[in-house]
């Protein structure tokens, strides 16, 4: 018990870093995903191709390789330089962005064409139709899958400890080797992750009920 009490402040400090990276990366990832989804659906060939290449490249490579490429690979170029936290945020955002893009594309396509036709026949422009009619409905349908991907991204952040970011996992490692109490420390780290993700699920359920399609 004393081990845990002594380690807890460090672990919570790590949790702060984890949450900080997660929140920024998921928001960025969602913006990237929306743009890429609109690229995929745009009636412009080049944009379709950009979106497709981006999604395929991210889906076709492991997260860790993406992280190493961005942190070590890009950083080795002379004209580019960022710290590990930035690299971590970029990697999680770019990774989540590809998956969000597919979720958002499917959500937009699931909305009946008649909705767009009704909106356009009233004189709404294409972008007004997206903003007021299609996206609000698509978003409600996408919420469960968006929650899923966010949880996956949160767990992906634990891999950032490898490039030296002092996140929850990294702090766990430090505490485990300092105290020689691996069992207790990793158990408590697991519990902390579980609680955070559980709270995220509750938030998602609340949003889902709030935005329920009538």
């Amino acid at each position, binding site marked *: 018990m004393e081990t845990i009490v002594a380690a807890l402040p460090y672990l919570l400090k790590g949790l702060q870093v984890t949450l900080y990276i997660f929140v920024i990366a998921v928001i960025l990832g969602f913006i990237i995903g929306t743009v890429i989804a609109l690229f995929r659906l745009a009636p412009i060939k080049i944009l379709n191709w950009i979106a497709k290449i981006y999604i395929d490249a991210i889906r076709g490579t492991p997260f860790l390789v993406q992280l190493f490429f961005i942190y070590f690979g890009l950083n080795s170029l002379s004209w580019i330089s960022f710290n590990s936290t930035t690299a971590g945020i970029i990697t999680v955002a770019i990774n989540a962005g590809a998956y969000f893009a597919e979720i958002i594309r499917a959500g937009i396509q699931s909305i009946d064409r008649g909705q767009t036709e*009704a909106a356009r026949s009233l004189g709404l422009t294409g972008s007004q139709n997206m903003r*007021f009619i299609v996206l609000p409905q698509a978003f409600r349908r996408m919420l469960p899958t968006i929650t899923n991907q966010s949880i996956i991204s949160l767990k992906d952040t634990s891999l950032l400890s490898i490039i030296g970011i002092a996140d929850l996992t990294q702090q766990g490692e430090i505490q485990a080797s300092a105290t020689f109490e691996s069992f207790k420390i990793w158990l408590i780290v697991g519990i902390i992750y579980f609680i955070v993700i559980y709270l995220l699920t509750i938030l998602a359920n609340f949003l889902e009920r709030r935005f329920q399609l*009538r």
Partner: protein
Amino acid sequence: MSVIQVKNLRKSFGQLEVLKDINVEIKEKEVVCVIGPSGSGKSTFLRCLNRLEEISGGQVIVNNHDITDPKININTVRQEVGMVFQSFNLFPHKTVLENVTLAPIKVLGMGKEEAEKTALELLTKVGLKEKANGYPGELSGGQKQRVAIARALAMNPKIMLFDEPTSALDPEMVGDVLEVMKDLAREGMTMVVVTHEMGFAREVGDRVIFMDGGFIVEENLPDELFSNPQHERTKAFLSKVL
């Protein structure tokens, strides 16, 4: 004065030519009903009038706008042309009132208060004022269609297009919707109605167009067309539906 002029209109979906050389003029305040077997191109014809379908050839002039001109701002033309769909297409995430006020507020820049006042008047007109704060999901088919009509009217259009407005309705709901449409016709709205309701076409229409195979086969005054069809295809169709 013609508010709609269609000259040599053609429309193809890939290899399939759905409309072949359609020519028609529709005058202000005229109620034109378009009848014909399924696959005759009548819905496609209607959807070309506000360019929901891209036009493959010919010319369509609506309210003096040449909508086949690629430089035209189609959104401004559509503001003057209301459309009612077979499947209603109400916005399920908006209340009935919001369905009606959305376009006046977002497209015409009307103030919320004014838009709601107009919307409530229109909902009263179609007999659904008490449903204003409900959602489309709570309405019956006939009620949905009447809201859809109010939504289109909220833009104060010069022309109303109806694409089989009663085809998806239970029989006992059809009457209410047709009543609203009759009122509109009486008020002098220019209407183009694709319909299977021969009774409506006969009673309310100023003119009936019979389409088959992508052509206008025959057009005439309703009584003339129904009691004395000139073409074999018209006769064959009417003998099946009347």
